[in-house]
């Protein structure tokens, strides 16, 4: 199935207008965040913003600190230094308010393989306090959007990798968040499935006004109009619109720009697809 076949956002959520961000509010605000595993420093004074209704790519090699940052944003790790805010809600001081506005797709699969597609969605809805009737309604909607209605009763372990990822994205949107985090969501998928998922997420940005932070190490997932944060060895080396970052480094493309920023010529060759 191509992305064009996925009828995304044909029915915007009823409370969407109320969920529009006021001017000036960052969907995600990272300020001076540092994190260490014992003596090893995984993040060093990381700061950047993700604007509402924007697609921000968090680009970094494996081990750059992307997943650590995601664990901090989702409160799986305690914040050692700095501050993280979601639409102005401090994740440490008001975690409930912040997490309500957040949807997340982690790098490893977090679906329950023994439950059906619908059961996974209902479980997620319950964790957000959404009643069974409303949850069934929303599940039907999101499954239709990702063209998985016919697999609603199937066990998750019987789905393909691409279908599982789409289901995880649908699940992350079930409680109608305004910020979506995706941590290397296309890892291990074939080219077509990757393209479908990427297009699906971009449509969420343009049609539903969701802010997206897309962690990746693949250059071909980034376009010139995206916002970009380059994370390398725990530090932010560059941030801004991709075309601006490319221009600032005097490079011709994002690949070369990244190499110039990180000096990771040998490594990048194997990461670029």
């Amino acid at each position, binding site marked *: 199935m191509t992305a064009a076949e996925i009828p995304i956002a044909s029915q915007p959520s009823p409370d969407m207008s109320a969920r529009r961000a006021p*001017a000036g509010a960052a969907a995600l605000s990272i300020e001076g965040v540092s994190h260490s595993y014992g003596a090893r420093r995984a993040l060093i004074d990381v700061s950047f913003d993700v604007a509402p209704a924007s697609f921000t790519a968090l680009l970094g090699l494996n*081990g750059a600190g992307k997943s650590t940052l995601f664990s901090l944003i*989702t*409160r799986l790790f305690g914040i050692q230094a700095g501050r993280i805010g979601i639409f102005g809600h401090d994740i440490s001081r008001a975690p*409930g308010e912040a997490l309500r506005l957040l949807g997340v797709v982690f*790098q490893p699969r*977090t679906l*329950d393989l023994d439950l059906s597609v619908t059961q996974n969605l*209902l479980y997620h809805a319950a*964790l957000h306090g959404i009643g069974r009737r409303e949850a069934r309604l929303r599940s039907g909607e999101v499954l239709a959007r990702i063209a998985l209605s016919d697999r609603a009763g199937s066990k998750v372990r019987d789905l393909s990798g691409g279908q599982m990822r789409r289901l995880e994205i649908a699940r992350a949107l079930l409680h109608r968040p305004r910020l979506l985090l995706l941590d290397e969501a296309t890892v291990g998928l074939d080219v077509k499935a990757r393209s479908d998922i990427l297009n699906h997420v971009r449509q969420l940005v343009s049609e539903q006004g969701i802010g997206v932070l897309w962690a990746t190490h693949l250059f071909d997932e980034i376009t010139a109009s995206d916002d970009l944060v380059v994370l390398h060895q725990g530090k932010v080396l560059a941030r801004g619109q991709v075309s601006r970052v490319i221009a600032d480094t005097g490079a011709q493309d994002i690949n070369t720009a990244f190499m110039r920023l990180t000096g990771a010529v040998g490594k990048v060759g194997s990461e670029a697809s």
Partner: protein
Amino acid sequence: MSSITVTPSRRGFSFGEYVTCLNGIVWREALRFLHQRERFVSALVRPLVWLFIFAAGFRQVLGISIIPPYETYILYEVYIAPGLMAMIQLFNGMQSSLSMVYDREMGNMRTLLVSPLPRGYLLFCKLLAGTAVSLLQVYAFLVIAWLWDIAPPPIGYLTVLPALVLSGLMLGALGMLISSGIKQLENFAGVMNFVIFPMFFASSALYPLWRVQEGSPMLYYVCQLNPFTHAVELIRFALYGQINWISLGVVAGCTAVFMIGAILAYDPSRGLARRGPAGGET
């Protein structure tokens, strides 16, 4: 860099949201349990082996005098039935914790922990869900025991329920507390051996404590200090429509201490941090 504008997000959670969350977690745990038929069968086989084989063999060796709550001489099978009910809960509590370690390693636990509801409440729901599953097992055991002529008063099936909930929570909280200190799944089997067997054997589950005292005064005191002993006695008395107040106090106190300890000690980063630097997920 800092954003001064705050987008409204509803504060707090309604009672209905808390109940929905609890229902969802219990429902998911029950579904998983029912999908794993082997787990259900093995959970029943274990106490039934003790009941049908061990108790039949020891019936002639171990005489039971009239001790509260019993009002007459009883068969050994009748005596150990409450101990076996508690044993089901002990194994279930540890197994639930095992599944939490597994979920933490596999990443499923993240689904639970990114819920906006308070983390302590989520873990409490998880404990309650494990307890609900143990109740299914215990009542299935009671049905089979009834066919074996172990028949407490009919009201006992009802009065034992709160005791089972409390003891299930205590043992589940203990399991969660233990699992908080476990860095990886492989370490859990050893801990099971150091917890389950000593707790079970150094208790009143298999023999009355006055018998133990005759054999070893030291062991008698160990048994008295063992919270599992009090879980067994709480269940035993409740099954006959009575309350053992000392056991109730000990089990309630231990439940509170274990639960608070488990919630405070629970560190979701334990499994993740281990996998992070090593597994490339950083």
